[in-house]
């Protein structure tokens, strides 16, 4: 059992490393990690320079989360598409390692690098513009950030399975971008949405991540409400990761029936 867990951790670590190495040699991905967040951070803070710091931190956290989701959807999705076109998706499936574990490592790499780049960009721009970003509960905020990575990775593993199952899923990539921004309350509270959408928001782990991050940054949530957000975030992320085991079994069986692991059949 210990040997098996060690093996799985090695696969995650190596998939993480390989994904990062590949991203660092891809100009398109590098632009998305380094330049784009700088432009977004500069624009967001410039627009908010006359508003109060409370509003600024809400927008900064919100826009950083939209950036994370975009990075997840495009980098992780395109990574699966790239594997299929390169013929490596089939090679990966043919190994004894679980594709779900490999994807976990890849998504973790994409989320970590995007998160680090966004934290760096917002801090840099706020310093340059002399616009301090104050956090109401810094320790709670840091813990929320760590849990946010968990929430996004869990969500990302589920989303990646759709790219494995449906070769044309790239066509839906753009249409998926905004509904998640809105339903997860990244940029404005979900209370502004129709009541029937609320249950959908509640089952999305990034919603609880946004709630915890906004709540701890602004101090707008009571401590016990932040705890509730963390518990819900951990619960739904764990449900995704555990549930993804059965999902990947189904997806891979379907892909082997439909011959969609490779572009050449």
């Amino acid at each position, binding site marked *: 059992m210990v040997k098996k867990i060690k093996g799985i951790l090695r696969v995650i670590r190596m998939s993480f490393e390989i994904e990062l190495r590949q991203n660092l040699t891809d100009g398109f991905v590098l632009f998305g990690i380094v330049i784009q967040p700088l432009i977004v951070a500069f624009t967001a803070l410039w627009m908010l320079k006359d508003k109060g710091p409370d509003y600024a931190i809400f927008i900064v956290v919100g826009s950083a989360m939209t950036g994370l989701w975009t990075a997840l959807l495009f980098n992780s999705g395109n990574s699966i598409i790239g594997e299929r076109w390169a013929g490596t998706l089939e090679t990966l499936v043919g*190994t004894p390692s679980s594709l779900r574990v490999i994807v976990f490592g890849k998504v973790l790499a994409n989320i970590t690098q995007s998160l680090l780049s966004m934290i760096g960009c917002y801090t840099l721009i706020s310093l340059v513009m002399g616009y301090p970003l104050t956090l109401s509960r810094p320790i709670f905020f840091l813990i929320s950030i760590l849990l946010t990575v968990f929430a996004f990775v869990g969500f990302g593993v589920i989303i990646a399975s759709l790219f494995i199952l449906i070769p044309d899923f790239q066509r839906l990539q753009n249409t998926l971008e905004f509904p998640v921004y809105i339903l997860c309350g990244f940029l404005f509270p979900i209370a502004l949405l129709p009541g029937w959408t609320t249950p959908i928001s509640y089952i999305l782990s990034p919603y609880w991540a946004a709630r915890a991050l906004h709540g701890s940054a602004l101090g707008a949530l009571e401590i016990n409400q932040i705890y509730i957000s963390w518990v819900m975030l951990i619960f739904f992320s764990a449900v995704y990761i555990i549930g993804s085991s059965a999902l990947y079994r189904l997806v891979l069986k379907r892909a082997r029936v439909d011959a969609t*692991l490779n572009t050449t059949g």
Partner: protein
Amino acid sequence: MNAIEISNLKRQFKTTIGVIKRQTKEVVAVDGISFDIHAGELFGLLGPNGAGKTTTIKMLTTLLIPSSGTATIMGLDVVKDAEKIRPRIGFIFGGERGLYWRLSGLDNLRYFATLYYVDANVAKKKIPELIELVGLKGREKEKVEGYSRGMRQRLHIARALLHDPEVLFLDEPTMGLDPVGAREMRMTIRDLQSAKKTILLTTHYMFEADALCERIAVINKGKIIALNTPEKLKHTVQDLSVVEIEIFGIPPGFLEKVRKLEFVDSVVVETHNQRQILLVHTPKGSSAISDIVEALNGLRLGKIVTREPTLEDAYVHLVGGQL
């Protein structure tokens, strides 16, 4: 003991035709094939493009689920026991795909060693050994995108051997290699055979199959049409001779005229720049030349030679000259 057992294996693919009125069509890629491969045997699967070779290998490597029939590798079912089979087999598909081009050859091998759960200490020793075996020593830290086609093929071989598999599937491993690279690859395959690996090899090159394989199955349109040793396959055409005619341009219709001659078994055209070589298989030998030349009346002909059939001729005879 059989390492691979295949029984009535069939695989269909669905394709759609049309945009508005979409129709689904079923294409049979592999049509009820059966054969066994003994442990430690080097077995060849020969066939023209689209015959079903790669589909067969993909089913055996657990990457495609058969439509019907069964296949076992070391007694394990390719559908039910896919996860148990994967650590025990290695595979390479012809061509340059299946590698990470933006990573070095060494990083590719490190990654796949991890995915095959090769112990880290074992991998540290094994990877340099394999790099040396496939002749990539000194180039292993360069990105794969800078490798030649032959180097990528050899890196594939190293990847497939990382976990010391019992059974190897080599799908056209010499495809696109220059003569020197192809010869080196054949020597590597021979070494693997000496190491008692069970190998299923597909190739278009008859001399390669003749030189390497203990038994050969010829597959055409998804069906096995012959299965025997190379020597016995050659005997299937021992009553035939091959008339080779050099021609400079064949207009439509002339080929059909030759095919319709009653003593002609099959006809194949090989194109070499401006000229073509017509290979006519016939039991009449050199006495058929005058009738064939008459059927080609009006064309500019060059050298005409009659020779004994080779394994390639046996293959052409079996697949009905559809090369």
